């Protein structure tokens, strides 16, 4: 943290923390108006009413854009105009009328969609929950679709998301603990966990990490992930990002921690291992054999996508004796007319594939179909017919591109794609020798990683007692243990008879 930020923070604290509400409500109202730049700030509303029961002035402050005006009309303005009683809290008959004593709380409450009331002659203010932030309705998951299984996804509202998680696990021990990040714009982060399973050490660690974030704003979980992870420069992710509440529920059951925030149609799950990133929720929704069949295909794809291009480069450039003659002659004949060295060919095609992929994400929807046409032409026929690349390279690049889509998790997907380029370059360097060397280094690095204290390849290596859900999974009935590498308080998933 730089000195500049510390200074800024100190000034802020002096300016806000210590400023209590004054005796005179009118002064307080003026101060609030000043704080919120009333008049310039168009949706900041200020109303002055006269209470019916004691004929005193009441000032209301709220953001019109984020509150429910019907609620204000019904529960505040109407009672004030018509209600009878001796106290404000009697008149406004809602439970969540909170007393506030300083300006910081007042501003926070207004920012969070509450309404603040100040009453003449009263040195305290009141705030009440009337927020109505607009958000999308619950829709289907966009990037983690399944054939079998629930089709609800998180949406950009914290409240809705908590509701979706609660729906998954109806347990009194499911705790939603709230803390906030950001100094200028406070956003609430909700930690969700099952309190009699979760490991307290990890929980404490996460809490501390969230509390130690000292920036002005953290808008959503995608940014939060980068603030709390241990190794921001690593090519391996250490937090799982998912948009599926059912997936979140599955991890909660095992004793993981979920982080939710407003403005994110996803949650963060931690701590995670390689296997968690590698799995898809559908593996568990399918029957034992089917799920494991998918797993086998996915693992094979994982291998192909990282290695096929690199293996091709190293075999063709350094070890032609390892290629069976028929294939060798086919490749050689195809390469007779190609002007580039093989490594350039491969890099060209891999780059072209990444290009299509990136362009496909960025392209405006109406132009979508062009990608397919242009891509197919560039990558397929034209390049081959123009003798720019050999048809075998098209097959290799298409294979490595296609298999990379099988890795569902976006973060791990990037890992794999970047690794592929590392391996291609290493293969071009000294063939199999350097490829194996670099693969070893890469693997050693991966094995040395930890996500919140949990080794990356646990429970396989180092071995831990667990449900055995690594490369393949067991039948659900045979799963007795929770994953012990995240050290849950309760290891038993299933009570043994």
């Amino acid at each position, binding site marked *: 943290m730089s000195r500049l930020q510390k200074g800024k923070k100190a000034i802020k604290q002096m300016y806000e923390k210590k400023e209590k509400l004054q005796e005179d409500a009118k002064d307080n109202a003026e101060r609030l108006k000043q704080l919120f730049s009333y008049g310039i700030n168009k949706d900041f509303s200020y109303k002055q009413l006269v209470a019916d029961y004691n004929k005193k002035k009441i000032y209301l402050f709220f953001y019109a854009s984020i509150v429910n005006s019907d609620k204000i009309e019904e529960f505040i303005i109407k009672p004030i105009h018509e209600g009878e009683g001796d106290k404000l809290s009697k008149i406004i008959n809602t439970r969540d009328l909170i007393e506030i004593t300083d300006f910081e709380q007042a501003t926070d409450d207004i920012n969070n969609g509450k309404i603040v009331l100040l009453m003449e002659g009263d040195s305290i203010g009141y705030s009440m929950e009337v927020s109505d932030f607009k958000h999308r309705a619950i829709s289907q998951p966009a990037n983690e679709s399944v054939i079998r299984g629930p089709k609800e996804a998180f949406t950009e509202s914290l409240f809705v998301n908590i509701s979706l998680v609660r729906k998954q696990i109806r347990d009194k021990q499911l705790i939603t603990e709230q803390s906030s990040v950001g100094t200028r714009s406070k956003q609430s982060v909700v930690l969700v966990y099952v309190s009699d399973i979760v490991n307290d050490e990890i929980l404490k660690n996460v809490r501390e990490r969230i509390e130690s974030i000292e920036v002005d704003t953290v808008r959503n979980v995608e940014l939060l992930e980068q603030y709390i992870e241990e190794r921001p420069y690593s090519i391996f992710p250490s937090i799982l990002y998912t948009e599926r509440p059912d997936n979140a529920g599955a991890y909660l059951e095992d004793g993981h921690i979920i982080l939710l925030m407003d403005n994110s149609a996803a949650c963060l799950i931690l701590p995670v291992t390689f296997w968690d990133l590698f799995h898809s929720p559908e593996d568990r929704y399918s029957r034992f054999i089917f799920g494991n069949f998918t797993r086998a295909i996915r693992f094979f794809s994982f291998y192909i996508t990282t290695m096929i291009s690199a293996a091709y480069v190293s075999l*063709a*450039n*350094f070890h*032609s*004796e390892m290629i069976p*003659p*028929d294939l*060798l*002659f*086919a*490749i*050689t*004949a*195809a*390469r*007779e007319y*190609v002007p580039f*060295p*093989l490594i350039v060919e491969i890099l060209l095609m891999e780059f072209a594939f990444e290009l299509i992929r990136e362009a496909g994400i960025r392209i405006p929807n109406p132009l979508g179909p062009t990608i397919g046409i242009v891509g197919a032409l560039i990558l397929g026929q034209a390049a081959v017919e123009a003798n720019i690349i050999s*048809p075998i390279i098209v097959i290799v690049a298409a294979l490595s591109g296609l298999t990379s889509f099988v890795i569902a998790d976006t973060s791990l997907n990037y890992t794999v794609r970047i690794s592929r380029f590392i391996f291609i370059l290493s293969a*071009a*360097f*000294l*063939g199999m020798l350097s490829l194996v060397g670099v693969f070893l280094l890469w693997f050693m690095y991966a094995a040395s990683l930890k996500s919140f204290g949990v080794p990356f390849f646990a429970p396989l290596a180092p071995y831990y007692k667990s449900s055995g859900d690594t490369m393949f999974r067991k039948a659900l009935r045979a799963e007795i243990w929770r994953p012990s590498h995240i050290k849950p308080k309760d290891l038993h998933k299933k009570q043994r008879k």
Partner: protein
Amino acid sequence: MIKHYGYIPVIFLLLLILTGCYDRIELEQQSYVIAVGIDKGEETGTFSFTFQLANPEVGATLSAGSDEEPQETVTITGSDIITATNTANSFITKKITLDQTKVIIISEELARSKDFIRVIQTAARTPQIRRSVQLIVSKENASDFLNNNEPKTETRPHKYYQYMLNRASQTGIIPDANLHRFFQITEGDADLFLAIYATTEISEPKESGSEDEYIAGQVPQQGGSKTQFMGSAVFKEGQMIDILDGQDTRICNILDKTIEMEELLATYPDPIKPEYQVSANYSQKSVPLVNVSYDKKNNHAKIDVTIPFEIEIIAIPSLVDYAQNNKYNQKLRESIEQSIEEKTTKLVKKSQEEYGSDPFYWSIYIRRYFKDIPAYEEADWNKVIYPNASITINYKLKRLEFGKMLKDSKLNEVRD
């Protein structure tokens, strides 16, 4: 700490620059030798090497209509294979590699001379030549063999050798003669090595009663490629001493535990009507049992060989009812066993008396009786033990089947 990470890419870049891509070669910059032929040169110490280079463009779909030849055969004089490849580059455009070589062809003249072992040594030394390369001895000069060999169907040479050798060795008419085995047996200084015998020169066809008693060049054929692979060249101590025909080669393959013997079709004399033959599918499901008992004092070995085998009768041209008549059946069993035993004993005798060593790789069974290698060498398998060993051959017919049909057509009913 962060500062140190900066060095990693720098070091990596230095590595790239300093080592470069040592050994890297693009595929299309190489010429692949499929077959190497070795002949005696004009002077001693020189040899003439013939390289058969594959042309990858032929047979590849995208360069359809390539009217180039599928292969290029060049001959050059040199003192060893590897340097000759370099000399050949004076008229071959690409780097000649021997990685994909399938066969080495030696002319019989060279094989029978003392120089053969000198030239083949290179093959053991260089990593370029695989140990699985098959050794072929050609009756004529190797260069003639390669030039005359014009397969009608498998025009791509690597395919031709692959299929030809695979099929021929499956039927057992040629031995499995890879380079590794050659060095193993020659260095071991016991046993005989069998190389494939082949030729493109059709000599006088031998009028023989049996289907496998030929050596290459004698098989009476009409049409097709002139090249014949049949029988084997016998090497003793790295020098060729004799030729075995197809039948003897098959027997060697049967008796040798280290060679996989699948099944072969052969004919056996019909015991009831001797003018006919009975055709059968001989298959050996288990390895032959070789029992060697060694008498240290007299340096004498007793070798008992038991060969369990199975027979499926394919044809009985004499139409004798062997299937259902027990007496005949028994007779057939005995006659089959006896005829194979006879042939085998003859070959064993020949090897003991004529060659003074065995082509069956039996020396491996006796080695365990010796304390160490010097003791074993002193006992001298080749000169002393094997020629004087008492050998009994015993074939055991475990099962006799008659195919899909028990009865043959009744001749007297057909011809009434």
